[in-house]
């Protein structure tokens, strides 16, 4: 049951990315390029996602626990530290170079472009390195 739910959530997530244009790096880079021909699509995607999540989370957190797990697994760190800010800066630089963040990169794999596969392999290596 939990696995079916995770599959459904992943499917919704991937469909949302594709519908919003986020599986096209040109659209993402068009948003980050504020000095060029600015493409606001990413702002609409983030706005839509935030609105639903903001309201939905508040309804969900009225419950004592999730439907299929013992407790909500929420981050326990609260400090804005150098790891957080340095990591975000490195991530942003890579995002600006390729137009891929982790979700859209993985969701784009089925199109079988060599460059996307190379990006994802490098991303997994970087992620594994950071988690050591």
């Amino acid at each position, binding site marked *: 049951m*939990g*696995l079916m*739910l995770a599959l459904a*959530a*992943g499917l*919704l997530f991937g*469909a949302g*990315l594709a*519908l*919003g*244009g*986020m*599986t*096209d*790096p*040109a659209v993402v880079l068009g948003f*980050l390029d*504020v*000095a*060029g021909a600015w*493409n*606001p699509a990413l702002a609409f995607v983030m706005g*839509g*996602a*935030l609105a*639903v*999540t903001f309201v939905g989370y508040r309804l969900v957190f009225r419950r004592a*626990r*999730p*439907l*299929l797990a013992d407790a909500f697994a*929420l*981050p326990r760190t609260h400090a*804005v530290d150098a790891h*957080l800010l*340095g990591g975000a800066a490195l*991530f*942003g630089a*890579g*995002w*600006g*170079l*390729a*137009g*891929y*963040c*982790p*979700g859209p990169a*993985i*969701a*784009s*794999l089925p*199109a079988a472009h060599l*460059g996307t596969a*190379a990006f994802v392999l490098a*991303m997994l290596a*970087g992620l594994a*390195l*950071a*988690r050591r």
Partner: protein
Amino acid sequence: MFPVLWLQALLGGALIGGAAVLLMLGLGRIAGISGIVGGLLPPAADWRWRACFIAGLLAGPAVVGFALGREPIGMPAAGLPVLVAAGLLVGFGTGLGSGCTSGHGVCGLARLSPRSIAATAVFMLAGGATVFVVRHLVG
């Protein structure tokens, strides 16, 4: 950009939000892609739901492609060496910073987490600055 594309982007965002709410309601988990994937490197004890989520993520665009009648996945926007460097930066950065566009930018902002607000501001600025350098200073 035509209004129909704005609506499409808003609706796409709403689906992403629906996915985040569903995962929190059902499993009590943050829908952050770098975190979900990170738990597979190496596979944690709870690898099964993570693998199922990723399987769904991989299948999602095909559903949209079928519904719209066109391929929603675009071409990579850079050459191989740049893509490899960018992948390393994105992987290492999201690992070090504990989240990406989904975990911090959607789930964290929705929880009004100070860490996520700070991280989102930094990666947006760094992304914009990088594109500015690549397209308007170097390019």
